């Protein structure tokens, strides 16, 4: 089989390229930038479009209203043509994502929380789940490089992490809400640290500095939240990479030798097209990637591509999430950003079996939002009681509620580690399709007993913390449904081809010229926001592919 001989020119339509990347989110963008810089000809297919910051609603009066629909992170709520629907009737959590250049980071809050050393050694330390085939220390150089591409803001010295290089931009203000949270944690002697965010505080790599508008999760109209359309694609395009938007991939094709030859996609005019490549890299997230593999059945791969282990789509992890709201007498400027994390706490992150569960969770303190936010969180109405009478939430009580809560709230978001279970999975739905008629994914997912106990423990500790901060009122939303921001684990990485889908370098065991560089390959989920680790792993795998180019198998 031919090795890849990089051809440092922009790929032309119809030409067979060195590498085809599917998905222009965080992982695909890292791969595109670095592969093109190394001289590979690269084409990336992205089903969404380039985001237009002028369309983001953050500067508009109706910001809160449209955040609940057109800019909601749940594709089933947005219901836009470029989104694919997800069948969720058998899932406790709704998956969240966004189709476009930059992927779901378009709507993320920018919490930058790399996995900790223990996250790579869960089996060794806690006797459950799996160890990763590499360690925190192996990944650290790639993390530090990515942090300088992303423009992370933060303060070094966090005792929740081993020492590392300084962040490229200073920390963002924690504001009155962050200070209020920190005061309570200090009284209890618990860990906190000013938030580390993928939001620069000074101009950086094409990004503007954050102006604290507080609308991070509906797209940043200031161009101040780190998304790959700003930080990576200008470099990739300059290197000669080609990006085709509005391209919905239907199938990865293979030749008679079992090598991937490229992909069939539907362009935005509904025409079927084909992109041939010597190497194929999937970066379509923990639902999109297994969906595509399961769609790519053939006589040689009757159960879907790269699925001889039967694990494609299994072990879906989405991070069950609870939120705890505290109301204070003092005004906290609760609508001001960043809507990244003001401060975080890793006090209860590591396992203590006396708590009745294993692993742990990270807390992020966030501001309360605008007046409609007094009864909602990230576009979902959650803080209103069910079966309420009209006068409970309306009438004079509405005025009292807004007077009491608006500008006086802080919210702890609890991200608990989701342990892998083969029964939690992505399959193809038998009826539902996207707007191109391609079968939609169906999610089968149940929150585990371990997760339930973990979240209840953490909710109780957050209530302690808010009490110590002086909260006069609290409210808990246990296991919110619209919280599947983190789509992980559905194409397990490991050394044994019978028990995993990709090897330690992201290459599929079954198709030697096909790779998976997104969060699908994660053996475990950590108890924190995964984008930092997704991008770092993508960089690690990409560099290995570059270094091994002479030995790489290719169609």
């Amino acid at each position, binding site marked *: 089989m031919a090795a890849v001989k990089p051809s440092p020119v922009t790929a032309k339509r119809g030409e067979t390229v060195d590498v085809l990347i599917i998905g222009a989110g965080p992982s695909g963008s890292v791969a595109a930038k670095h592969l093109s810089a190394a001289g590979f000809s690269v084409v990336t297919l992205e089903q969404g479009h380039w985001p237009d910051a002028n369309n983001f609603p953050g500067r508009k*009066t*109706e*910001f809160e*209203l*449209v955040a*609940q*629909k057109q800019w909601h992170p749940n594709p089933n709520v947005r219901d836009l043509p470029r989104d694919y629907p997800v069948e969720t009737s058998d899932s406790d959590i709704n998956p969240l994502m966004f189709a476009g250049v930059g992927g779901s980071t378009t709507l993320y809050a920018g919490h930058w929380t790399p996995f*900790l*050393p*223990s996250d*790579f*050694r869960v089996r060794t*330390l806690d006797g459950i789940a799996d160890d990763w085939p590499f360690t925190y*220390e192996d990944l650290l150089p790639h993390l530090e490089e990515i942090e300088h591409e992303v423009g992370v*803001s933060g*303060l070094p*010295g966090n*005792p*929740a*992490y*081993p020492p590392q290089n300084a962040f490229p*931009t*200073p920390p*963002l*203000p*924690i504001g009155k809400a962050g*200070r209020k949270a*920190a005061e309570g944690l*200090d009284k209890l*002697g618990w*860990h906190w*640290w*000013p938030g580390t965010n993928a939001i620069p*505080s*000074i101009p950086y790599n094409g990004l503007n*500095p954050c*102006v*604290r*508008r507080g609308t991070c999760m509906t797209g940043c109209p*200031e161009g101040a939240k780190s998304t790959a359309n700003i930080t990576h694609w200008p470099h990739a395009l300059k290197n000669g990479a080609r990006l085709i938007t509005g391209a919905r991939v239907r199938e990865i094709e293979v030749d008679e030798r079992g090598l991937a030859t490229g992909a069939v996609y539907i362009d935005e005019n509904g025409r079927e097209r084909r992109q041939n490549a010597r190497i194929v890299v999937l970066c379509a997230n923990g639902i999109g990637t297994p969906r595509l593999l399961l769609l790519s059945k053939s006589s040689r791969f009757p159960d879907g591509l790269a699925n001889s282990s039967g694990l494609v789509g299994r072990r879906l992890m989405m991070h069950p999430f609870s939120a705890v709201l505290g109301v204070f007498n003092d005004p906290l400027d609760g*609508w*001001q*950003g960043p809507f990244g994390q003001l401060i975080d706490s*890793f*006090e209860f*992150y*590591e396992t203590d079996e006396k708590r009745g569960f294993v692993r742990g969770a990270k807390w992020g303190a966030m501001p309360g939002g*605008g*007046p*409609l936010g007094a009864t909602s969180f990230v576009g979902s109405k959650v803080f209103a009681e069910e079966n309420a*009478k*009209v006068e409970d939430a*309306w*009438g*004079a009580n*509405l*005025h009292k509620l*807004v*007077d009491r809560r608006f*500008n006086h709230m802080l919210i702890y978001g609890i991200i608990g580690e989701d342990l892998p279970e083969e029964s939690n999975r992505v399959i193809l739905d038998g009826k539902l399709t996207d707007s191109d008629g391609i079968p939609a994914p169906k999610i089968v997912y149940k929150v585990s007993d371990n997760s339930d106990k973990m979240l209840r423990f953490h909710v109780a500790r957050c209530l302690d913390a808010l009490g110590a901060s002086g909260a006069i009122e609290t409210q808990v939303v246990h296991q919110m449904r619209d919280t599947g921001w983190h789509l992980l684990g559905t194409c397990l990485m490991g050394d044994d081809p019978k028990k995993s889908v990709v090897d330690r370098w992201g290459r599929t065991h079954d198709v030697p010229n096909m790779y998976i560089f997104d969060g699908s390959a994660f053996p475990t989920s950590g108890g924190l926001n995964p984008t930092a680790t997704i991008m770092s792993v993508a960089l690690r795998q990409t560099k290995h592919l570059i270094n091994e180019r002479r030995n790489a198998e290719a169609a």
Partner: protein
Amino acid sequence: MTQIDQQVRTTFSGIADVLIPEAEGMPAASAVGVHKERLDHILALRPDLREAFFRGIASAHNRDPKSAAEELNAQDAAALSAIGLVASAGYYMSPRVRELIGYPGQEKRTYDAEAIPEYVANGMLKIVQDRGPIYRPTPKA
């Protein structure tokens, strides 16, 4: 019924004032015009609300607004929710209401990124640091 006519505005105004009355020093919903141009604006921004909104309004025509709202809450909560969101979104988009509650909207705020943060200057963070590492290191192979 799918068009905003005077009857729709009148019925909506009545229910909106049940949901958002003049009280606690705040004006009623109709006093800031949620049933006027702002209603057209909100439904144009959120056409997904139209069906439930008009369904609820149709059931409330020529009825006492309070009892109509109570009945919707019991029998068609989605319709009352749509009417309530249209009313409250319009209300809190009103400049007068925003001024009264002290909400300038999602505005820009400048800050000095290079300034030493208060929590560093006053020693708060050093207390956290001085407690030492809390992570479990990678176990030796």
